[in-house]
C-alpha cells in the first residue's frame, strides 16, 4: 500500500470527539411544523405580537417555497414533519446569574472545553452559550454594558431592546431570501444579539458556542450583530453536536449590520458531527450568513474553518453598499469520509471604490466532495471597485472531489476583478521528505495541511487559531495501527 493510501485509511477511521450527549430534562414541542408550532414557540418565549406576526408571515412564505436544488450536494429528502422545532433544557426558573444555571449544563460546556465559570474569571472572551435551542448563559454582561455594548441571547434582546431588534431583524437576510432563511424566520428559537454603540471598540472577543443535544431536534438560531458608526467588534462562533445515527438539521441565520466606518470581524470554527465513516448520521448545516456594509468606509470580514457536518451549504456574504467599504472572506473547508460541502461567498459591490478579497482553501479526503461557489457582482454605480479571489484545493487520495464554481458579473467598466485557482495533491514526496527528517506520517499531514491553510488561519483570533489548528489535524487524523 502506498503512503497516501495508508493515510487515507487512517483518516477514514477517525472518530468524532464531541459525540456524547447528556440527559437533561427537556421542555419540548411535539414533532413537526405547522402554524400552531410557530405560535407555541413564540408563546414559550413570551414574545410580543409583532414578532409572532413576523414569524407567521415567514411561515406562510416558507410553505410556498421549494428546497433549492442547485448546490453540488446530495442527501435524502428531509422530512420536515419528523423534526422537533423546539427543545429547551428544563430549568425550574430562569437563571439570574451563572451561579443559578443547572450544574449539568455547565458541565456539558466544560466537556466542550468552555468553562463558563472560568470565562467569568479570565478576561478575554465573553461567551453566550446556546444549547439545543436556548441560550443558557452569557458571561461578562455587566462589564460590557458599562461601555454600552449589548451582548445577550436573542430572546432577551426581544424583551429588553425591542426597538433595536425590530429595526434590524430581517434587514440583511429577509424572511423570503431563501428556503432555509424562511424556515428559520418562522421557528428560530434563540441565538445571540450584539450591539456596539457609536465609537466603541469592543475590548474583548464576543463568542457564542452552539450545541445540539436533544435527538430529532433541529437547531434554528439567529444571530444579529449591529455595529454603529466607528465601532469595532470581533465575534467568534463555535459549534458541536452529539453523535447520532439520524441526520439533524441546523438552519441558522446570521445578520451583520455595519454603519459608517464600523468594522466587524466574524470568525467561525464549525465542528458539527460529520456522520460516521460510512456516511451515516451527521448534521445538515444549511446556513445563511450575510453582512451589509451600510456605511461608507465600513468593513466586514468573515473567517471560517469548516470541519464538521455531513452536508454544508453556506455562503457568508457581504453587501458593499457604502462607498469605500471592504468585504473579506477567508475560508478553510475540510471534508473527509462522506462529507459534502458547498460553500463560498458572495460579494455584492454597490458603492464606489468598494473592495473585496476572497481566499478559499478546500481540503478533501476520503470519499468527500468539496465545492467552492462564489459570486462577485459589480453593480453599475460601483466605480473603481476591486475584487481579488483565490481558490485553492488540496486533494488527499483519489476518491474525493474538489470543485470550483465562480460567478462573476460586472456592470461597471472601471472594475478590476481577479480570480486565481489551484488544485494540488498531498504528495508522497512531501510526506517522505518530512519522514526523512524524523516526522511521523500523521504529523507530516497536519504540517502540510496547516501550511496550505496558513493564510486563512492567520486571520483567526489567537486563541481560536490554536483550537482550529488542532481541529484540522484531528479531522484528518486516525488511529495509526
Amino acid at each position: 500500500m502506498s503512503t497516501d493510501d495508508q493515510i487515507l485509511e487512517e483518516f477514514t477511521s477517525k472518530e468524532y470527539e464531541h459525540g456524547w450527549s447528556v440527559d437533561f430534562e427537556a421542555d419540548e414541542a411535539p414533532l413537526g411544523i405547522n402554524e400552531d408550532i410557530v405560535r407555541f414557540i413564540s408563546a414559550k418565549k413570551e414574545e410580543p405580537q409583532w414578532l409572532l406576526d413576523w414569524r407567521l408571515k415567514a411561515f406562510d412564505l416558507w410553505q410556498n417555497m421549494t428546497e433549492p436544488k442547485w448546490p453540488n450536494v446530495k442527501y435524502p429528502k428531509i422530512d420536515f414533519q419528523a423534526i422537533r422545532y423546539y427543545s429547551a433544557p428544563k430549568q425550574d426558573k430562569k437563571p439570574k446569574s451563572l451561579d443559578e444555571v443547572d450544574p449539568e449544563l455547565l458541565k456539558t460546556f466544560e466537556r466542550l472545553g468552555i468553562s463558563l465559570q472560568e470565562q467569568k474569571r479570565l478576561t478575554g472572551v465573553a461567551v453566550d452559550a446556546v444549547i439545543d435551542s436556548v441560550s443558557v448563559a452569557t458571561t461578562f454582561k455587566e462589564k460590557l454594558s458599562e461601555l454600552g455594548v449589548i451582548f445577550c441571547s436573542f430572546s432577551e434582546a426581544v424583551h429588553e431592546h425591542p426597538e433595536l431588534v425590530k429595526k434590524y431583524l430581517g434587514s440583511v437576510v429577509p424572511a423570503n431570501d431563501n428556503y432555509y432563511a424562511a424556515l428559520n424566520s418562522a421557528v428560530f428559537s434563540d441565538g445571540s444579539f450584539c450591539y456596539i454603540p457609536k465609537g466603541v471598540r469592543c475590548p474583548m472577543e464576543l463568542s457564542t458556542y452552539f450545541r445540539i443535544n436533544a435527538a430529532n431536534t433541529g437547531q434554528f438560531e439567529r444571530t444579529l450583530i449591529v455595529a454603529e458608526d466607528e465601532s469595532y467588534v470581533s465575534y467568534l462562533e463555535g459549534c458541536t453536536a452529539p453523535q447520532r445515527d439520524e441526520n439533524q438539521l441546523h438552519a441558522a441565520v446570521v445578520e451583520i449590520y455595519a454603519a459608517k466606518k464600523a468594522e466587524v470581524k466574524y470568525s467561525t470554527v464549525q465542528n458539527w458531527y460529520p456522520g460516521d465513516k460510512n456516511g451515516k448520521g451527521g448534521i445538515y448545516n444549511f446556513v445563511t450568513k450575510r453582512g451589509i456594509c451600510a456605511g461608507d468606509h465600513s468593513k466586514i470580514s468573515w473567517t471560517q474553518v469548516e470541519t464538521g457536518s455531513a452536508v454544508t451549504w453556506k455562503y457568508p456574504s457581504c453587501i458593499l453598499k457604502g462607498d469605500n467599504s471592504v468585504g473579506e472572506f477567508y475560508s478553510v473547508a475540510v471534508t473527509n469520509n462522506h462529507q459534502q460541502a458547498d460553500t463560498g461567498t458572495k460579494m455584492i459591490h454597490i458603492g464606489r471604490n468598494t473592495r473585496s478579497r476572497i481566499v478559499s482553501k478546500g481540503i478533501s479526503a476520503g470519499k468527500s466532495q468539496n465545492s467552492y461557489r462564489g459570486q462577485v457582482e459589480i453593480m453599475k454605480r460601483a466605480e473603481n471597485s476591486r475584487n481579488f479571489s483565490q481558490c485553492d484545493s488540496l486533494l488527499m487520495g483519489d476518491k474525493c472531489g474538489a470543485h470550483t464554481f465562480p460567478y462573476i458579473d460586472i456592470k461597471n467598466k472601471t472594475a478590476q476583478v481577479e480570480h486565481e485557482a489551484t488544485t494540488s495533491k498531498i504528495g508522497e514526496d512531501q510526506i517522505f521528505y518530512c519522514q526523512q527528517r524524523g516526522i511521523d506520517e500523521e504529523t507530516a499531514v497536519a504540517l502540510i495541511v496547516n501550511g496550505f491553510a496558513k493564510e486563512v488561519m492567520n486571520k483567526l483570533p489567537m486563541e481560536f487559531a490554536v483550537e482550529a489548528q488542532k481541529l484540522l489535524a484531528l479531522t484528518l487524523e486516525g488511529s495509526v495501527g
Partner: protein
Amino acid sequence: MISIKNLHASIEDKEILKGIDLEVKAGEVHAIMGPNGSGKSTLASVLAGREDYDITKGSVTFENEDLLELSPEERAQKGIFLAFQYPVEIPGVSTTNFLKTAINQVREARGEKALDAVNFLKLMKEKMKLVDIDQSLLSRSLNEGFSGGEKKRNEIFQMAMLEPKLSILDETDSGLDIDALKIVADGVNKLKTKDTATIVVTHYQRLLDYIVPDYVHVLYKGRIVKSGDKSLALELEEKGYDWIKEEVAAV
C-alpha cells in the same frame, strides 16, 4: 556503523540493485560514483526507507540494528540523514517551523525533552553561522521559490540542525555552480567528526575535490564493480566510465 550485505532492490518488478556490499565505519567518507542509471540514487532512497522499492534479498545493519525493519522516520530518529537530490517544496511551512517539528519529534523518540523556543533559536543561530545561511531564507516557505543553490544549502543546514550519525548526500553537487558547491562542501566538512560517517553519491568527481573521500566505489548496473581510494575518482574524471563498462563486460 552501517553494514550492507548482498542488497537487492527492485521497483515494479525491475531489479535495480543486484547485490550491494558496503561497510562504512564511523569517521569515514565513502563516495559512490557511477554512470547515470547505475542505481546510485536508488541506494540512497532504499537506505532512507522510501517505500516505492521492494527489498528482495540481503540485509542492512545500522548500529547493530536491522535497518530494513524501521520506518523512514525511525531511521531519521536513529541518526540517518538524506540530503535530497531534489528537495521537496512545502508551501506555507517555514524551514524554521519544519525543523522545530522535526527536532522535537526526534528528541521525543530519543526520550529527550523538547527544545523550548529560546534554546531552539540558540541552536539555529549557531548552525546558521556554520553553514553560512541567511535568516530570511529560513522564514520563507520550505524550498518554495528557492534557487538550486539555496535548496542545497538548506539541506545542509537541516543536516547541521539534526546532527545525524550517517549523512547520505544524493547528488548534492547537481545544479550547483562552483561557488555554491564550495559553500555546501565546506558545511559538510565542518560537520564531519570522528563519530559520524558520510556517503557521498555523485556522478562527477569535482565535489570530491572539496569533500575528500577515504574510499571510492563505482556502481554499475546495480553492483559495486570497483573500489579504491581517492585516486580512483581522479582516474574516472580523466577516462570517463567507458573503461569500467568494458572491464565489466570482459569478466
